C-alpha cells in the first residue's frame, strides 16, 4: 500500500515529538521531512536525524519539496495562519495543531485556503479518540444511562508545559504567540469532546479563567459552565493546574450523568505505575494520537472526510473565545453557532 509522505513543521509545540514517533511507526505514512522553524529548532534537527528524515531550516523549503504530500503543523499558534495558508497553496494536506488560529477571522482564512486549494484540513482533538470515552459514548447512545443530563469534565488538566525538560516552552507564556495560557492550551480538547458527546452546541457559556496557581503572565486554569441547546449542562475545568508531583502526565476525567445511571471515566490512557520518590503513571499506549494520524492519512489517501474539520475547530475556538470574554466581563456570553 502507498505510504503518505509527511512533513512536520516546527517543534515549537511539544506534541511534535509524539506525532513524529506515531507517523514514523505508521504503516501508511512515512516521516519524510522536518523543518526547524520557531522554538526547539535543535530538537527538530535531532529528531530528523533519529528518524532519517530530511531536515529543512525553514518551512518554505519543506513546502517546496514535491515529495511532501501532507504536513503536521506544530508551530507557535500565532503563526498557524501564515504557515497553514502557505501549505495549502503548495497543495499539502494539513494536520494543524490546535487551536486553529488566534482569531475567528484567521480561522476563516485558513479554512478558505484549504478549500480553495482542495487540500484536507484536520485538527487534532484527542479525548474523542480515547478508548474509555469511545466506550462511554457508545453506552450513552445505546441508552444505558438514559437521557444525558449533565457532564462534569476535567479535560485536560496538565502540568505547565514549561516544566517539560529539554524543550523551550516560553512562547506558551506569551499571549501574543499563544492566544492564552492553560485554558487556551487544553480546553479545546475538552470542548471538542463535549460537542461530540452531546451532539449539540452550547447556547451560553460562563467561565472563570485566571492566573491562579503559578503566577504566570497568562492564565493557568479555567472552568466553564456550558448550557447546550439540547438542555445538557456541562462544567469543564481545563488548564495547567496540576502540581509537579501529580502522578499522571495529563488528567482527563468525565462524569456523565444520565437519568438512569452515570458513567465515571477516570482516566483516558492505559497506564502502569512506577514508585520512587513519588508515584508516576506511565502511559504504555496512546491510541488517540495513533487514531488521529491514521484517520487523517486515510482521509487523504482515500479522499474521505476528515473526522474534525476546520469548521469544527472554528466553532471550538468561538466557544473558547466566548469563555475568555465571559471571564473578562464576568457575564454569561451567548453563542450563535
Amino acid at each position, binding site marked *: 500500500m502507498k505510504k503518505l509522505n509527511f512533513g512536520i513543521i516546527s517543534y515549537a509545540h511539544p506534541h511534535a515529538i509524539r506525532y513524529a514517533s506515531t507517523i514514523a511507526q505508521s504503516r501508511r505514512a512515512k516521516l519524510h521531512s522536518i523543518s526547524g522553524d520557531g522554538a526547539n529548532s535543535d530538537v527538530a534537527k535531532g529528531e530528523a536525524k533519529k528518524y532519517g528524515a530530511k531536515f529543512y531550516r525553514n518551512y518554505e523549503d519543506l513546502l517546496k519539496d514535491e515529495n511532501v504530500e501532507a504536513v503536521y503543523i506544530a508551530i507557535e499558534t500565532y503563526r498557524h495562519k501564515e504557515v497553514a495558508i502557505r501549505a495549502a497553496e503548495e497543495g499539502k494536506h494539513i494536520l494543524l495543531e490546535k487551536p486553529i488560529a488566534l482569531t475567528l477571522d484567521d480561522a476563516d482564512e485558513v479554512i478558505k485556503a484549504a478549500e480553495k486549494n482542495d487540500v484536507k484540513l484536520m485538527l487534532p482533538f484527542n479525548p474523542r479518540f480515547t478508548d474509555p470515552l469511545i466506550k462511554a459514548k457508545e453506552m450513552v447512545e445505546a441508552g444505558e*444511562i*438514559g437521557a444525558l*443530563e*449533565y457532564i*462534569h469534565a*476535567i479535560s485536560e488538566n496538565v502540568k505547565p508545559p514549561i516544566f517539560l525538560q529539554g524543550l523551550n516552552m516560553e512562547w506558551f507564556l506569551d499571549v501574543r504567540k499563544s492566544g492564552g495560557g492553560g485554558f487556551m492550551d487544553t480546553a479545546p480538547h475538552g470542548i471538542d469532546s463535549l460537542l461530540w458527546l452531546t451532539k449539540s452546541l452550547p447556547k*451560553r457559556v*460562563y467561565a*472563570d479563567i*485566571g*492566573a*491562579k*496557581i*503559578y*503566577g504566570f503572565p497568562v492564565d493557568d*486554569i479555567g*472552568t466553564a*459552565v456550558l*448550557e447546550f441547546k439540547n*438542555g445538557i*449542562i456541562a*462544567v469543564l*475545568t481545563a488548564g495547567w*493546574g*496540576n*502540581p509537579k*508531583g*501529580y502522578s499522571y502526565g495529563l488528567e482527563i476525567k468525565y462524569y456523565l*450523568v*444520565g*437519568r*438512569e*445511571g*452515570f458513567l465515571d471515566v477516570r482516566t483516558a490512557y492505559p497506564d502502569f505505575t512506577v514508585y520512587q520518590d513519588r508515584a508516576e503513571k506511565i502511559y504504555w499506549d496512546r491510541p488517540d494520537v495513533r487514531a488521529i494520524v491514521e484517520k487523517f492519512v486515510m482521509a487523504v489517501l482515500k479522499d474521505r472526510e476528515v473526522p474534525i474539520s476546520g469548521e469544527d475547530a472554528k466553532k471550538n475556538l468561538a466557544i473558547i473565545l466566548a469563555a475568555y470574554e465571559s471571564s473578562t466581563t*464576568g*457575564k*454569561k456570553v451567548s453563542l450563535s453557532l
Partner: protein
Amino acid sequence: MGKLEVGIVGCGNIFNLAHKPALKHMECIKVTACADIDEERAKEGAKFFNARAFQSLDEFFDLDFDVVEILTPTYTHAEIAIKALKAGKHVIVEKPIALTTEEAERMIKTAEKEGLKLFVGHVRRFDKRWVQMKDIIKKRNILPMHIRKTEVQNLPFPAHYWYWDESKSGGVALDLGVHVTDFLRWFFESSPIEVLGVGKAIKEEAKTNNTFDHFIMMIKFEGGKTGIAEVSWAYPYPARYGVFYHHVDVIGKNGRIRYTPLDTPVVGVAKANFEMPRFSPLLSTFPDAFERELRHFFDCIKNDTEPAVTAHDALIALKIAEKAKESARKGEVVRL
C-alpha cells in the same frame, strides 16, 4: 453548672438518624422534653430519653430547660427559633439556618437582643474528613485557589414529601447548597463576591414540584479564588440505598488534594445488582460528627464562648445559595 437541660422540637428523620444517637451517651446534658406535631413521634422520642412529650409548642416552651434543638423542616426554623429565644432558651437549629436570609437575620437579632446563643448545625465543619483536609491545607500551605465540592444523592423521598416543596425546603440549591457554600468559604477563608447558578429538573419529583434537583454554582471569592459547587438529588444511584456522596478537588498554589468516595477503603459489594459502597447509616456524614458538633455547642453554652461555626457563617452560606437561586432564575450572574 450542672447538666444542661435540652428540649427537642421535631422528632423526624434527622432526629432519629443523627441527633438521638449522638445525644444518647452525652453525660453533660439531659433531654427533658420532646415536641412534634405528630403525637406518636413526640411520644417515641420522649420515651427514648425518659422525657416529657408535647404537641403544643406553647406548653413545651413553658417548661424550664436551657436549650432547644430545632430539627423541623426548614420553613419552620425562624418562627420556632424566635419563639424559643423569646422564651429564654438557647437555640441549636439544623441547617439551613432558615428559608430566607431575612428570616435568618431576624433570628440572629433576636438572639443578640435576648443575650442567648444561636447555633446552626453545619455538621460538615465537624466531619473528620474535612477537618483533617483543612488542617493539611494549613500545615502544608496548599493555598487553595480552585475548589470543587460535590454533594450528590438520589433523594429517596416521594414527590409529596416536604423536601421537594421549594417553599418548605428551599430546594436542593438551598438544602444541600448551604453545606457546600459554607464549606467553600471555610476552606478559602475568603469572602464571596458573585455567583452564577444553573439548575435542572431531572427527576419527575422535581418536575411535578417545579423545582430543581440538580444545581451548579460557580462562586468567585476575593483573591481570584473560584468555588464550584455541585449539589444534586437526581443522581441515579439505586434509590433503595439512598447513597450520598461527596467529591472534593482542591487545587492550590502549592499542591492539590482530591477526595472521591472510592479513595477511602470501603467494602464494595458486587451482587447481581451492583451496590455502591457506603460509609455510615447517616449517608451524608459520620455519626460522630453530629456528636462532636453538639458537644461543641453545649460547651459553648456552658463556657459562654464563640462556636467554630457561627450563626453569621450560616447566614452567609444561606445568602450565597439564595443568590445562586436568583442567578439561575434570572439567567445571569448575581453579586453578593
